[in-house]
């Protein structure tokens, strides 16, 4: 199945749900309703994130839906995601092996938060 990045419009119901969840999250600094999906997808594509992750299926890394299910609504969810793709920690792959996670090539906190929130909104 091809990964088709959802457009912002198609994404609206999900974003509303995430926004509601974020209202109860003390550390959700960027409200999901403000997620710029196009910018997040562009950053992810630029950094080859989709080579290892898909929205709804397991590739080399877990599906974004699976990641979102794990961290959505948690106080430190956004921080953990940003730490994951800015510090390059060892991550366990779906085949059981380990490798260093890719480090995103931006230090712009706004961009990083937007990407994290986009992932959490899946």
């Amino acid at each position, binding site marked *: *199945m*091809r990964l088709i990045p959802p457009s912002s419009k198609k994404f609206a119901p999900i974003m509303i749900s995430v926004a509601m969840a974020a209202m109860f999250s003390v550390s959700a600094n960027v409200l999901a309703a403000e997620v710029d999906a196009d910018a997040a997808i562009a950053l992810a594509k630029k950094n*080859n994130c*989709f*080579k290892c992750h898909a929205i709804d299926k397991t590739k*080399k890394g877990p599906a974004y839906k699976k990641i979102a299910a794990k961290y959505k609504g948690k106080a430190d969810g956004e921080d953990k995601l940003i730490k994951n793709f800015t510090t390059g920690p060892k991550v366990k792959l779906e085949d059981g092996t380990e490798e260093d996670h*890719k480090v995103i090539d931006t230090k712009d906190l706004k961009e990083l938060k937007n990407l994290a929130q986009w992932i959490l909104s899946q």
Partner: protein
Amino acid sequence: MKKTLLLLSLAALGIGSACAADPAKINWSNISVVKVPLFYPGQSTYEWLRSDAHKGAAKEVKRGDACMSCHDEDGAEKDIGNKIVKGGPLEPMPVAGKSGYKELKVQAAYDDKNAYLRFQWPTDNAYPGSEHQYLRFDGKEWKVSGYPKLDKVVQEGKQPGIYEDRMSVMIDDGKVAGFAQQGCWQSCHDGQRDNPKQFTKEEVAANPLLTAIKKGDVRKYLPDTRTDPSDWKTGKTVEEIAKLKAAGYFVDLIQWRAHRSHAVGMADDGYVLEWRLGDAGKDVFGGNADAKTHAPKFMWDAKKVGYKSITADQLRKGDHFLIREQNAVPFDPNAGWKEGDMIPDYLTSREDAKGSAADNNAIASWKDSMWTVVLIRPLGLTNDDDKALKEGGVYNVGFAVHDDNITTRGHQISFVKTLGLGVKKDAKVDINAVKLP
């Protein structure tokens, strides 16, 4: 080439007989179109895919994972092709203005006799790439004029870029390990023409396999034909390779050529095993240069076409095909040749094409910067160098287009796809040929 001539040629071969559709009359509007992304691969060889340069994926490729297990996101092919074509580690000699991506429209049908594969793709140029290299008289000798655009002589402006457009299909019936996952990349290796670590003549001359099969360069090969798949020099013996072939370890390679086969309504028929080989028999085209003098062997018949040669100012103006049985006569060295006279470097002939090499026909046209090509492939071929297409069969296929005067790596290619011939709806294939009424 006029379409009527092609149709007459096809009719003469019985393609319009009772059990086969008239390929010119197939109603393609009733057959679904599959859009296949094609992208510029540059020098992303079998070896590069397995190297650390293929970031984060070498292990997966060596394990045999499919290319699309990673490159499956929307727009993946476009992103890759547009990046590589601009030049960089995978393209040391970028061609100005070349497309990194093309959309290939594919339709497929079959009847009791043939499979019909219809392809449409846009050309970069506002003219059909139906001319090929010429022999040009420089006042003393006949020399090749026109080269593919990856060649240094073209990039330095010393020669014009002249090379025919092509549409290629590689077919595996499941007997080539890895092809279902990694497609054409099974056949593309370091050492080949225009790839990294390109062979030298001395290396080829010293190579036991290539000397045994009488080849003077390195072209596509499949991994199991070498003891080390990543080293073209490690060829197995001819006997071992014959056993691989007998076991079906080869891929069919059909190439429609806008000059050398289109001229007579055909596509050539070859296969890849230890080299890119032609099927048994006689191919639709052959060289027109005399091996010793390099003068042409044939020229145009002035009584039929009004000229015996052309000059550079006539390029891209009309169909410049030299067809042995239609418009060619033996070359006359005393015909008053002048500097700049040009005669095609290749001679085409449907009448001379014979055997397994002459299996494939084609109808093609170019209009509004778009080629439309219908390949006609007989079903159930029994030659030992063909993959037999059968109703209900599923095949792994790779597609490639050579556009804008180029050859070797200068193509746009697809990730591997599956082609079925009338498979049931629950059998998942990318392209399912429909049975014609």
